[in-house]
């Protein structure tokens, strides 16, 4: 499991309009592109230096490809990164269809089985 690597994906894709559009259009292709071109770069700013040992689990890869923010919450991906990136992907469409905050409220409802419980930690 690499919560760190999941967070790194969310962080980099959310901060780049090109990657973000690609993540909306074809998540599987973008994930492969990110792993090849971004994920193994050292940190988030280097272009030459590499990190050789980071990789996703099958469950993490599936959750990212399926935009499955419930699974990501349960993995312990950072709540702010998850919320921000999926708002970017879905908020406008939901708001147009169902009014302001419709996406955010559905997001909360899909996590309602966690009400009253300790959430999975986002600590690394």
């Amino acid at each position, binding site marked *: 499991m690499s919560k760190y690597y999941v967070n*790194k994906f969310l962080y980099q894709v959310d901060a780049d309009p090109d990657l973000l559009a690609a993540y909306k259009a074809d998540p599987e292709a973008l994930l492969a592109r990110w792993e090849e071109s971004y994920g193994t770069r050292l940190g988030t700013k280097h272009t030459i230096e590499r990190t050789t040992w980071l990789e996703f689990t099958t469950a993490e890869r599936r959750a990212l490809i399926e935009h499955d923010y419930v699974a990501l919450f349960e993995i312990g991906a950072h709540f702010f990164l998850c919320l921000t990136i999926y708002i*970017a992907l879905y908020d406008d469409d939901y708001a147009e269809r169902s009014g302001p905050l419709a996406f955010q409220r559905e997001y*909360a409802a899909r996590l309602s089985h966690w009400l009253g419980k300790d959430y999975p930690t986002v600590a690394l």
Partner: protein
Amino acid sequence: MATLSAVLATTHHPFFLKATELTPPEDRIPQAAEWKSKVEAYRATLTAAEPDLLVMVGSDHFHQFFADNYPTFLIGKQPRYDATFYNEEREFSIPKYVLEGHEEFSGYMFQGLLDRGFDFSISHELKIDHSIICPIITTRPEADLPVVPIYTNIFAPPLPSPKRFWDLGRAIRSIIDEWPGTQRVAAIGSGHLSLELGGPRQFGETGPDPVFDRKAIDWLASGDIEAILENVTMESMSAAGNATHGFLDLILMMGIAGPEKAAYVDELDLFHTREMYMTWYPAGDPRAEVAA
């Protein structure tokens, strides 16, 4: 010697500008007018203090800094600071700013913190996010004063303790008091009351824990650090909402003010948070002087 003319502790709501100005009047939320009026009244508490220089306390929300290298405490030391990231413009419609810095005071603050046992990180290429720009927009929209930005980690756990935030506030206060400049300094910090983001209690009709909010405002307003240190833990903040840890920066601001009663306290129940606006006047209440 410098004068600490005001200490402001406030929640930062990134949608303030969008909700109260950028959205056409007919599409605004019902609370928009009241929200704007409360913010303008709060702004007057800073204006009355006639500050020349702002010590700003905030926290990077994974904008410039990420978990490959996330500083616990960091200060900027630069002649100028860019502000507002692409994804903040995208989501919140926050404009870009360039704020003047004050390298000499940043350096003095950095050395003073090291001397007091706070081993800060320092950045010479810091870009400021909404934790600092939101209070600029609300309390000093002219964005015309030099700033000394201080970042804390309230965001990427494990976090320093509430006591550490209080002690850091006390240290910052003593450094401001010793600064040999003649400026009138105001310290402005932003954080949160109970808050949930990306969890099942997000975007409800109120903040996730109105009971915590009531206590938190009362503790801060009365300067009751004992009650805070007795009641506020990482676990109690998590129980109040998964992003409630921004309250730590409000504790820090009370540390700058000291265990004193606040001069100005206001709040607003919004659709998913309670907003709080609090001001202390360590050098005396300038509004009282005007009234007299």
